[in-house]
């Protein structure tokens, strides 16, 4: 299950709507091993495409160095589909290389840049195997238990 706070959920949806008809992408980092999506980072889609996304390689390194410095990992990797359902495409499955992450897919096909509901779904993708999981949107994540 993915548990995510309302503000982060809304920010991912807003990013997807803003970048429509191109695909939007980014991550939500959290403390290593915590499974807590705490810090959202919008990334530029270097492909600038309605059918493909890719983090810019220089920004990717900067992002990971920042996470390593903070003892964080990518808890959520999100991107949007702008003409199809919020389900991982064959390309998504083939290129998924963060086995510990929740892969969030948002579809903006219904309302594009405008207000209105979107599909927001989450999956794990390990060795080409896709498993959908429940998304639990909470007002705020519970306090960290340390």
């Amino acid at each position, binding site marked *: 299950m993915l548990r995510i706070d309302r503000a982060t959920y809304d920010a991912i949806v807003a990013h997807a709507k803003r970048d429509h008809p191109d695909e939007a*992408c980014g991550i939500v980092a959290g403390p290593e091993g915590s499974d807590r999506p705490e810090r959202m980072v919008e990334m530029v889609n270097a492909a600038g495409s309605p059918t493909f996304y890719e983090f810019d390689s220089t920004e990717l390194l900067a992002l990971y160095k920042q996470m390593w410095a903070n003892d964080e990992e990518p808890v959520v990797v999100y991107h949007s589909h702008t003409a199809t359902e919020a389900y991982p495409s064959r390309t998504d499955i083939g290129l998924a290389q963060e086995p510990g992450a929740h892969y969030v897919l948002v579809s903006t096909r219904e309302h594009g840049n405008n207000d209105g509901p979107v599909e927001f779904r989450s999956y794990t993708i390990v060795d080409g195997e896709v498993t959908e999981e429940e998304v639990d949107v909470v007002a705020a994540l519970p306090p960290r238990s340390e």
Partner: protein
Amino acid sequence: MSVEVRIPTILRTYTGGEKAVSGEGASLSALIDDLEANHPGIKERLVESKDAGPDLRRFVNVYVNDEDVRFLGGLDAELSDGDQVVVLPAVAGG
């Protein structure tokens, strides 16, 4: 002559879970051969055969001292003692 190589989560099955390993080589391709000798199977994940010869896989990024090796000659990129190499899978999809 030793180079530190940062290994991404998905390739740590080849390094016994280690986040970083050290290797040797005067070029990236020599370093990858050295890694392969100690961590069999890892080379296949980094390099593919193309018509023009072996090349880095399209969706694997390798950086030497923070520079993407695609701007440093790819597999021919030269390495020096103390260089820091980072391997990061691309985050991409369709």
